[in-house]
C-alpha cells in the first residue's frame, strides 16, 4: 500500500496544474481545431465545410489588409523601439548619478495597463484640444487628425513636398498607434539591454581604453557584437508582441474600431471582430490558427537563438 502511494505521489503534486492546463489550454486547442472545419455559430455546429473557412480567409481582401497593417505595425514599432532603447541603455550604462531614477521613470508605462495608456493617448491625440496638436501649434504647425486620418504617412509627406510617390505607407491613424506602442514598450527593452550590457566583462572596455579606442569604436567592436544575443532576443520578442496588438485598436480607433477605412484593422482585431462581433466561431478559430502559425514560426526562431546563446555565449 505504502509502495503504491510512493509511486503515485508525484502525480498528486502534478495534478492541480495538470488539470488546469489540460482542460483550459490543451483541450480548447484540439476542440477549436475541429471547429475550424465547420460553419459554427451561436448554437454550435451548423455545417461541415472542410477547408472552406481557411480558403475564404485567404481570399478575403480585408484579411490581407489586416495582415498588411500588422506588418506595417511591426515595422513601425520594432526597429524604432530597438534603436532608441539600445541608445538609452548605453547612456544609462555610463555610470552616471540617478540611473535608478531614470530607469524607474522609463519603466512606468510598462506596468501601466494598455487600457489606461490608450485612454490617456486618445486624449493627447484629440484633434481640437489635444496636447499633441497644442504643442505643434506652439511651433506654428497646423495640427493633425491623428486617429481619424486615413492617408498614409508617406503619402502625406510626399504630398507636402509636392512629389509623386507610389507607396502610401501606414495611415497616420496606424502610425499614431505605433508611437504609443513604442512609448509603452521602451522601458522593458531598456532593462533587457541593461541586463545584457552588465554581462559584458569590464576587462574588454579597459583593454580598449588602453588602446585609445574612441567611443564609437568601443561600441562597434565590443558592445554591439557581445550584445547580439540580447539584441536578437529583444528583436524577436518585440515582433511577437507587436503581432498580438489588439487593445489599442479597440480603445482608440473608430467607431467602428479598425477604422478609418480599415487602416488600423490588425490580425487580432480581425479575429476578434469575426468571432465575437459576428459570432462566426468556425471562421474565427480558423483565423486563430493562421495567426498561431505565424507566431509559432517567430517563437521557434527565438528558441533556436536562445539555444545558440547557451552554446556560444
Amino acid at each position: 500500500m505504502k509502495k503504491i502511494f510512493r509511486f503515485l505521489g508525484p502525480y498528486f503534486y502534478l495534478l492541480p496544474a495538470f488539470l488546469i492546463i489540460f482542460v483550459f489550454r490543451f483541450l480548447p486547442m484540439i476542440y477549436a481545431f475541429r471547429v475550424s472545419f465547420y460553419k459554427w455559430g451561436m448554437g454550435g455546429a451548423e455545417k461541415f465545410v472542410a477547408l472552406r473557412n481557411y480558403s475564404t480567409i485567404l481570399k478575403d481582401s480585408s484579411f490581407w489588409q489586416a495582415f498588411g497593417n500588422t506588418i506595417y505595425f511591426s515595422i513601425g514599432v520594432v526597429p524604432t523601439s530597438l534603436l532608441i532603447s539600445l541608445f538609452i541603455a548605453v547612456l544609462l550604462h555610463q555610470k552616471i548619478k540617478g540611473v535608478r531614477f531614470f530607469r524607474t521613470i522609463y519603466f512606468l508605462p510598462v506596468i501601466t495597463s494598455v487600457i489606461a495608456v490608450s485612454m490617456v493617448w486618445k486624449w493627447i491625440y484629440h484633434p481640437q484640444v489635444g496636447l499633441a496638436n497644442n504643442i505643434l501649434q506652439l511651433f506654428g504647425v497646423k495640427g493633425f487628425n491623428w486617429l481619424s486620418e486615413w492617408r498614409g504617412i508617406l503619402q502625406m509627406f510626399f504630398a507636402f513636398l509636392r512629389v509623386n510617390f507610389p507607396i502610401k505607407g501606414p495611415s497616420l491613424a496606424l502610425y499614431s498607434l505605433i508611437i504609443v506602442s513604442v512609448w509603452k514598450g521602451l522601458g522593458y527593452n531598456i532593462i533587457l539591454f541593461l541586463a545584457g550590457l552588465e554581462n559584458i566583462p569590464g576587462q574588454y572596455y579597459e583593454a580598449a581604453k588602453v588602446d585609445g579606442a574612441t567611443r564609437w569604436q568601443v561600441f562597434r567592436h565590443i558592445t554591439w557584437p557581445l550584445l547580439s544575443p540580447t539584441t536578437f532576443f529583444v528583436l524577436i520578442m518585440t515582433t511577437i508582441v507587436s503581432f498580438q496588438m489588439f487593445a489599442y485598436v479597440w480603445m482608440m480607433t473608430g467607431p467602428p474600431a479598425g477604422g478609418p477605412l480599415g487602416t488600423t484593422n490588425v490580425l487580432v482585431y480581425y479575429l476578434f471582430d469575426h468571432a465575437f462581433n459576428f459570432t462566426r466561431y468556425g471562421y474565427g478559430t480558423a483565423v486563430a490558427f493562421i495567426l498561431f502559425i505565424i507566431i509559432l514560426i517567430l517563437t521557434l526562431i527565438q528558441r533556436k537563438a536562445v539555444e545558440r546563446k547557451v552554446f556560444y555565449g
Partner: protein
Amino acid sequence: MVKKTVGKIIIIFLLSLIGITMVLPFYWMIITSLKTPLEAIQFPPTWFPNHLRFRNYIDAWKQVPFPRYFLNSVIITVATLVGVLITSSLAAYSFARMKYPGRNFIFLSFLAMMMIPIPVYIVPGYLILMKLHWVDTYLALTVPWLANVFSIFLLRQHFKTIPKDLFDAAVMDGCSRFGFLIRIVLPLSKAALVTVALFSIIGSWNAFIWPLVVTSKDALRPIQVGLAYFVQEQSTNYTLLTAATTFTIAPIVLLFFILEKRIIASFARSGLKG
C-alpha cells in the same frame, strides 16, 4: 576632465528629455483630472489647474459601478495569485525533485502550451467555457488562470539549484517529501516566488482581452473592462475619464514604487512582457 564633464551633461540632458516624454502623458492625465470641464478644453492649455477640482474623482467613481469593478479585480487578482502559487509550487517541485514515468513528456508538453499566445487562445477558450456553461461567471474569470506554465518553469529552474544532499539529510531526520517542500524548498526560493507573485498580480490587474470576451454582465466586469466601456460611453467627458484612469492605475503604480527594484529585476530576468 572638462570634456568628460561636458559629456556627462549631454548624457543627463538626453536622458531627461526622454524622461519627460515618458512622464508627460501621466502628468497631463493627472492635471486634466483636476480641471473643470471648461478649463480642460481651453486654448492655450493651462499647465496647472486654476482650481483643483477633486470632485471629478467622486463623480467618476459614482457614474458607473467602479466600486464593483474594483472588487471584481481584487477577487480575481487574489484568487489567481493564491492558485498560481499553490499549483506552480507543487508541479515545479515534482518536475525538479521527483522521478516518475512520463515526467519529461509532460514537462515538454507544458512548454509547448506556453507557445500559445492569449489572442490565439481566446476563441478556443471561449468555446470550452460555452460547453461548461461558464460564460459570465467568476469561474470563467479565474479558473483557467489558476495555473500557468511560465510560473512552473521559473520555479522549477530555481528548485533545481537546491542541493540534493539537503534533501537526503532532511529525510534522515524524518522529514517527509511534502515537509521538505514546505520547510526547506519554499523558504529558500523567496526571490523566485516573489517574481511569480508580482507577474501574477500585475497580469491579473491589467488583463483585458480575456475578461472582455467572457463577460457581458456589468456586475462581473473587472476594472480594465469597466474603464474601457466607461471611455466608450463618456467619449467627450475627459475630466471624468482621466480621473477614472488615474484611480484605475493607482494600485499597480503604488506597488511599483514600493517594490520598484524587485519588479524591474523580475522583468529583466524573464522573457515575458507584462
